[in-house]
């Protein structure tokens, strides 16, 4: 899975779950201020990403630093890379 495919899958899952216009998911878009998500949505975002990629994220402390869509992309890309590295 390429990085681009990972980002597209993550965006599609987030857009569907939170009923967002996919076009609004620009990397600089802030989840709270720009997209209207709150702390409960942030909790659910973890489950959505877990289900989209079939991975376990759990209570990863790095989640707390996700502020915008770009942060989310970086987070999920790092997670996937880490899993692939461990698998090899």
């Amino acid at each position, binding site marked *: 899975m390429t990085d681009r495919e990972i980002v597209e899958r993550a965006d599609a899952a987030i857009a569907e779950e939170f*009923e967002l216009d996919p076009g609004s998911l620009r990397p600089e878009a802030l989840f709270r201020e720009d997209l209207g998500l709150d702390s409960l949505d942030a909790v659910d975002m973890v*489950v959505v990403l877990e289900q989209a990629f079939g991975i376990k994220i759990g209570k990863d402390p790095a989640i707390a630093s996700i502020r915008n869509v770009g942060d989310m992309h970086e987070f999920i890309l790092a997670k996937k890379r880490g899993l692939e590295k461990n698998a090899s």
Partner: protein
Amino acid sequence: MKRVVITGMGAVSPFGRGTDVLFASLRKGLSGISRIAPPHDGRDASGPCPEERTGVTVKAGRGEIGPGKMSGQRQRPLVAGLVPDIGIGALPRTLRRSMSPMSAYAYLAALEAVEQAGITPDKLKGGRTGIALGSTLGSPEALESFFRLYLAAGDTSGVKSMLFFRSMSHTAAVNTAQALDVTGRVIAPCAACSSGCQAIGLAYETIAFGRQDYMLCGGTDEFHPLVTGTFDLMNAASSAYNEHPEQTPRPFDAGRDGVVCSEGAALLFLESAESAVHRQAAILAEILGFATMHAGGSIAEPSPGPIAACMRAALEDAGVAAGDVAYINAHATGTELGDIAESRAIADVFGPNIPVSSLKGHLGHTLAASGALESAACIAMLREKTVLPTRNLEEVDERCAGILLPQNPVAVQGGLVVKNSFALGGINCSLVLRSWND
């Protein structure tokens, strides 16, 4: 003690959204009951959450109770009164995400009641408006979703945050309060099929004692096999009319075979008579009295004595005599034992000459919503001075004899109505309503 009046009503029922369609359908004698899907839809316990009906997807076969095969000598019930698509998906996601269908129904009914009452949003959020709103339990669908995920995974890792907010027992009350920005007292009586009636009674007392200026009150419920299946276990769910859903339930009829579970919501807007007159609101009816009592004895089997005691207590609270009552809106769900017990209690308290009917023949049993939906219908009947007969009542069961069970609409002169609701667990409730100008 303040006099308490009703200045707004809202409803969601198997006939759709709004009191207009509810009252029009009842007047036409329509049935809200339909056949529901028999086959198990094969939801996979290892998959994602089943879509909740407030979400994007409305599941086909949502009403299924289990294979509709003969089970011993009794067929499984395949009839229900389901709310049609009323556009819940159009509600804002931030409100809808914590709402199961019962909360969405209640919110939409509350909006209608508030609009009819002519109350502005600032009055709702000033701390002087409260809500009393009950349901049989929190959303069974949400609980089902939680346990599917939990049991499949062995932990809560796949559970989204909103399932709990949909399944807690005060979910409808708090969701409605949040959506309307109501900041006064929020009470969530949880008394199964008496919840709606009890909520109205608690709100009536709240206004009467001046604890709040305004109260939204009523009941709501959503269809789930948990409740119908439980009635079925007790041989109290209708199944003999699966091929003719409109012919069941049949309160007081010799051919009745049990409850038909339905869903919906109704909310009433209460305030003091002084308040309503001061702000020149149209007064729909007055609440004169209320009683709720436990039956003692069996947790499920109805008994005439406690029902009669509850009705007498409500009349005493209202300060009226049994002979003053023009109409009794029965709880009568179409069960063997319940209809007999209520008939005998009514005969004991009121004698044979006061018209009695049940609206379950039209609506089915809307459970926690029934007390409120049927109270709203009583108010419409009071205003029209005509009481409606029991749909599907063709041949009165002789064990229900001794009370007046009209089979056609009846003109009534007086403006006093008794509304009964009874619940599994032995919670009985009676309200006394009166048209405003009598």
